[in-house]
């Protein structure tokens, strides 16, 4: 058997929908799930003689994202026409950027399973307009909806620096977190706000010789799962193709493939040879953009701490686990809620548990964020303090969380009192109850003190009796301590 080793090489193109109110070059509303062809005007449907005008917000969102991706922002950028014929592209060209993109040469740090961070290069990020949407439900015909036509898209192109499906997924997830932190995109996969196109091939070493397999580009993936699986599938497929037929990279044997989700495999897409003859040229309808230091620093002022930095800081500063810090920093407002609560004196670990295990669960059920539930840092502080001093048991935290969301105007203490969820930690009060129970249950006391087989069960029974007499409000930890002392 021959000695064979291989390494997967993946670069990504990502299209991110920017969260502007209107389209890139006209005032049509950006709306999802509305009546087809109801957000269309002469500009975005490509009527002759119309004049596109740049959306300033879209441009600034694009620059902000590029800054977050550590890109340099040239002082001059321009628009080009990319020509192709497709029914969802009514002008027969797409307004895009070719040789002078609005940003280039950046990087993104992605968290790996191992807890380490890997730096992936960004070649460029440029602005362009999206096409419309085709649906293929009409037999020999397609139905075209132009509502999406002209939406602002940021296309981000990475270096081929990723080497596994996990890393590709990590980059996609990290980018989603970044655009959401910045507020430049909702990053909603279901709504197609992020679309991925991985370029994949293998570097194979066999019997001391290096080979490369032909690059395959997988088009239009719109879920993290499809992205991850398609890279894994393509790795295996290219390895087979190499070992079975010895196929290696040649001029012009790059292929385009699609992801077949039903059969969980990639499928070769037939392309005509002139498909990539896009005949780019400067768009005469649009004037260039010049970026000066003053404008750039105004945009830069909107940058915030990036999620991965926040996550690492939560681990080092508050001793949270990598996992907890990851969950907490998923949404910027939730991470900030946590930080504010800690700044007000909440215990970090308890605050983290209360947010991630209780309020986050409620928020997920309601499809909103923890902050949108109306939960304030003060509430988190109150809750952690009540747990710390033993006023409420850790089991009643979740009920209090649910009740507090439904009664935002009440303090947590009021809610806990109202629903008998305050537990007694008063040793004197508890001791009196323990004495009563011991007096009333001599048989069980005997079982405990004789230390036989029944001892453990009898101890549990006595504890249960005390809890019952306290109507569930005694702190069980303290009950157990006092019981143990009395029965030793």
């Amino acid at each position, binding site marked *: 058997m021959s000695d064979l080793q291989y390494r997967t090489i993946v670069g990504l193109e990502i299209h991110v929908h920017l969260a*502007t*109110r*209107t389209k890139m070059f*006209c*005032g*049509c*509303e950006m709306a999802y799930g509305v*009546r*087809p*062809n*109801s*957000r*269309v*005007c*002469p500009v975005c*449907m490509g009527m002759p003689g119309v004049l596109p*005008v*740049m*959306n*300033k*917000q*879209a*441009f600034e969102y694009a620059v902000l994202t590029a800054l977050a991706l550590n890109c340099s922002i040239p002082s*001059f950028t*321009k628009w080009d026409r990319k*020509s*192709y*014929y*497709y*029914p969802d592209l009514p002008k027969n060209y797409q307004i895009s950027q070719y040789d*002078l993109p609005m940003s280039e040469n950046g990087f993104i740090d992605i968290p790996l399973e191992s807890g380490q961070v890997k730096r992936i290069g960004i070649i460029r990020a440029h602005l362009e307009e999206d096409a419309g949407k085709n*649906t*293929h439900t*009409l*037999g*020999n*015909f*397609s*139905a*075209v*909806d*132009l509502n999406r036509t002209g939406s602002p898209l940021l296309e981000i192109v990475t270096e081929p620096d990723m080497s596994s499906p996990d890393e590709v997924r990590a980059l996609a997830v990290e980018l989603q977190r970044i655009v959401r932190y910045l507020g430049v995109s909702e990053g909603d996969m279901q709504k197609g706000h992020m679309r991925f196109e991985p370029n994949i091939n293998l570097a194979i070493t066999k019997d001391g010789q290096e080979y490369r397999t032909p690059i395959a580009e997988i*088009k*239009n993936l719109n879920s993290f799962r499809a992205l991850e699986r398609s890279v894994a599938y393509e790795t295996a497929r290219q390895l087979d193709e190499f070992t079975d037929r010895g196929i290696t990279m040649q001029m012009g044997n790059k292929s385009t493939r*699609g992801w077949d989700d039903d059969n969980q495999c990639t499928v070769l*897409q*037939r*392309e*005509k040879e*002139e*498909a990539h*003859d*896009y005949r780019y040229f*400067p768009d*005469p309808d*649009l*004037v*260039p*953009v*010049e970026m000066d230091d003053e404008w750039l620093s105004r945009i830069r002022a909107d940058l915030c701490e990036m999620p991965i930095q926040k996550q690492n800081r939560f681990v080092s500063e508050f001793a949270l686990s990598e996992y907890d810090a990851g969950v907490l920093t998923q949404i910027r407002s939730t991470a900030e809620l946590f930080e504010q609560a800690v700044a007000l004196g909440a215990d970090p670990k308890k605050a983290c548990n209360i947010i991630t295990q209780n309020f986050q669960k409620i928020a997920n059920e309601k499809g909103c964020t923890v902050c949108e539930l109306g939960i304030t840092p003060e509430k988190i502080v109150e809750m952690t303090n009540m747990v710390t001093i033993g006023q409420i048991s850790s089991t009643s935290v979740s009920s209090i969380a649910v009740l507090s969301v439904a009664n935002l105007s009440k303090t947590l203490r009021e809610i806990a009192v109202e629903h008998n969820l305050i537990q007694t930690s008063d040793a004197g009060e508890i001791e009196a109850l323990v004495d009563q129970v011991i007096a009333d249950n001599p048989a069980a006391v005997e079982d405990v003190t004789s230390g036989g087989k029944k001892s453990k069960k009898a101890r549990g029974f006595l504890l249960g009796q005390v809890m019952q007499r306290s109507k569930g409000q005694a702190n069980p930890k303290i009950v157990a301590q006092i019981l143990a002392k009395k029965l030793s």
Partner: protein
Amino acid sequence: MAKKIDETQVRKVAKLARLQLDDAEVAQFSTDLSSIVEYIEKLNELDTDSVEPLAHCLPVHNVFRDDVVKPSLTVEQVLANAPQRADDFFKVPKILDDNSGA
């Protein structure tokens, strides 16, 4: 002298532009386009080494609009010129391969 734009190139460009040309037209365009290209090649006689490439012919930049919603057309207006429609959609011959442009 060989033509600057031969008939193969004319056929290719016509195909990219979705134009159907007969043989006479192909020959005609080959002659016409070649003379245009030859005419423009006169510019190569100029020394442009120290001239910045021109991105736009107007001395204007940064023309923006605010991100404010303007009324769109009505669905009926949008579809008024459509050769065929299906409910609120444009109805077009089935698209076989995705974004191939061919």
